[in-house]
């Protein structure tokens, strides 16, 4: 059965070009870049090249890129490193819709180090409450961690404006840009963030590789303390094949931004419009005028997300849901709850996230099959007469 993949915010296909550049580093160039001998040392230039490719995607200097194992590590290294460098004499400011890589860590640090933590609320469309943010920022030096784009709804926070405010206040600005990188243009020369997290497998590199941007001069303690790799900022022998792969993926992403903005966005819009037109009692979650080009989050009233996903899966369609049942947590996703989505819609929220590999045929396959799935489950629902 053909795989119709609409779950790119969860993970994305490894680009064939990426796999290709990685392979020699398993078979031929498997040396340690820190070695003095030629066999190992020759690998160093490929790591340098990859660092430049990652830096180029976000317009940073290569020296400001630290390779990590994943987005979660990047977020942990940035937030924890900044808090510890300030001897914990800071407030933490984040939002209530962050990825758990940020939210759980902030709650942990707040409890452990007795640091004040503010989780800024969002409105019904997922937009940040900027007034509340300003009030919290005025309370004193802070480490701020706010996401560039939300993984579930795709909604952007106004990171440009927020970063300017944070710098004005003399605080530290971190952004979890895991979902934004590769889908929209991110330029750290234009946007004054101090720290930024990105993840390889969300932009067609494999799982197990991420990177952190650290603006020159930012005070940061290391999370992984060990050898001198990454200029003492992250101990551990470089994961060379994956670093090379991430570099290639970033190069491809830069070239593909225009495709995301135009073609992928148009496919997403067609998918969304098609579903809304053919399935009654459906709504879009999140601000449709302020979100990633690849993401749509649609609620199907009176039916439950996991049932929808299994029905889609039987047709080869991969998507995800913020419903309670998909996580085993018994509660709907914290993002959906924070937005105050009513119960009638919350349990039936489905996220479709596209990528450069989606085609019009995929979208039409979903639109053609969705009404029957929804109708069947609604016939079964005690809440529909």
């Amino acid at each position, binding site marked *: 059965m053909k795989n119709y993949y609409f779950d790119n915010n969860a993970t994305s296909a490894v680009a064939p070009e990426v796999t290709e550049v990685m392979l020699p580093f398993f078979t031929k160039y498997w040396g340690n870049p820190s070695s003095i001998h030629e066999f190992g040392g020759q690998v160093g230039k490929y790591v340098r090249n990859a660092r430049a490719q990652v830096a180029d995607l976000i317009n940073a200097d290569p020296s400001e890129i630290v390779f990590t194992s994943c987005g979660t590590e990047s977020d942990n290294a940035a937030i924890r490193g900044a808090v510890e460098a300030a001897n914990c004499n800071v407030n933490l400011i984040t939002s209530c819709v962050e990825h758990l890589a940020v939210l759980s860590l902030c709650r942990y640090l707040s409890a452990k180090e007795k640091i004040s933590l503010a989780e800024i609320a969002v409105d019904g469309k997922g937009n940040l409450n900027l007034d509340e943010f300003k009030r919290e920022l005025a309370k004193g030096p802070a480490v701020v961690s706010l996401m560039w784009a939300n993984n579930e709804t795709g909604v952007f926070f106004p990171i440009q404006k927020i970063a300017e405010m944070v710098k004005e206040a003399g605080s530290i600005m971190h952004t979890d840009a895991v979902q934004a990188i590769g889908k929209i243009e991110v330029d750290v020369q234009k946007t004054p963030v101090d720290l930024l997290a990105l993840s390889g497998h969300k932009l067609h590199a494999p799982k197990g590789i991420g990177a952190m941007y650290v603006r020159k001069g930012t005070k940061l303690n290391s999370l992984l303390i060990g050898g001198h790799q990454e200029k003492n900022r992250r101990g551990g022998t470089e994961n060379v094949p994956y670093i090379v792969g991430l570099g290639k993926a970033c190069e491809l992403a830069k070239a593909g931004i225009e495709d995301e903005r135009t073609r992928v966005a148009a496919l997403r819009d067609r998918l969304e419009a098609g579903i809304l037109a053919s399935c009654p009692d459906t709504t879009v979650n999140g601000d449709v005028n302020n979100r990633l080009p690849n993401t749509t989050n649609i609620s199907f009233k*009176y*039916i*439950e*997300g*996991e*049932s929808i996903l*299994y029905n889609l899966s*039987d047709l080869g369609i991969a998507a995800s849901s913020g*419903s*309670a*049942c*998909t996580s*085993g*947590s*018994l*509660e*709907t996703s914290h993002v959906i709850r924070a937005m105050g989505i009513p*119960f*009638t819609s919350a*349990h039936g929220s489905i996220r479709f996230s596209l990528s450069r590999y989606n085609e019009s045929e995929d979208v039409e396959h979903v639109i053609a099959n969705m009404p029957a799935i929804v109708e069947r489950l609604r*016939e*079964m*629902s*005690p*809440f529909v007469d």
Partner: protein
Amino acid sequence: MWDYTEQVMDHFRNPRNVGKIEDADGVGQVGSLACGDALKLMFNVDEDDRISEVKFQTFGCASAIASSSALTEMIVGLTIEEALKVTNKDIADYLGGLPDEKMHCSVMGREALEAAVYNYRTGTSGDKILAGTIICHCFGVTEEEIERVTRENNLKTVEDVTHFCKAGGACGICKDDIQGVIDRVMAEVKVEESPEYEKPAKKMTIVEKIRLIEKTIDEEIRPILAKDNGGIDLIDVDGNKVVISFTGMCSGCNVAHFTMEGVVQAKLRKFVQEDLVVVEEKK
């Protein structure tokens, strides 16, 4: 992706007995939109009090739909009395098992059946009746329900209880209370399992009674208190009144009155005489 059995996926993909029965003899509904799953069960009975027709409507995940479907197949043709013997475990077993986190789906099936039978017998609403003390306010789960799933499924941890009836699965404030219920059930089970001592049949002399009290304190009570570095002394026996004093960590312990009733008095009543009253002599 859940590790669902083939039976679960079959009942999810091809649910049996979906739909409504107009003017059904018994109707029961449990769960809600807020909870994320709900089941409405409807049945008719024939003149022999057998379930002749059954239908369901379910809002919920694959395992909720499968559990509902399985339940209808299991109870059709049974008498009401027979149907009431179906436990949540039976439903899960019928489906070849459910993931731990999904056991509450099978509990929902059993609850809907009970609600429908209640409606059939009384003619009043068979929707889930929230009788008793609510422990989990997020999901509206009562102490009685928690006690029941704990007992019936031999649950040992708060996490288990959450998997079976959702209690404690949201804000988590009630987790201590759930642990309290588990502790109580486990304590009861232990008492039931412990070998029965023959209580002296004939009336004891006061000396025999004091000896038996001392023996019980020695063998049954001191070992328990010793675990918390506490001790106990027998001060006096006057009719059915036993005067004791706590020593070590038990003396001045602010929960000593629980130990008093739950351990000392309970053991003495069990092994010596049912109407004994134990009081503590304050030093």
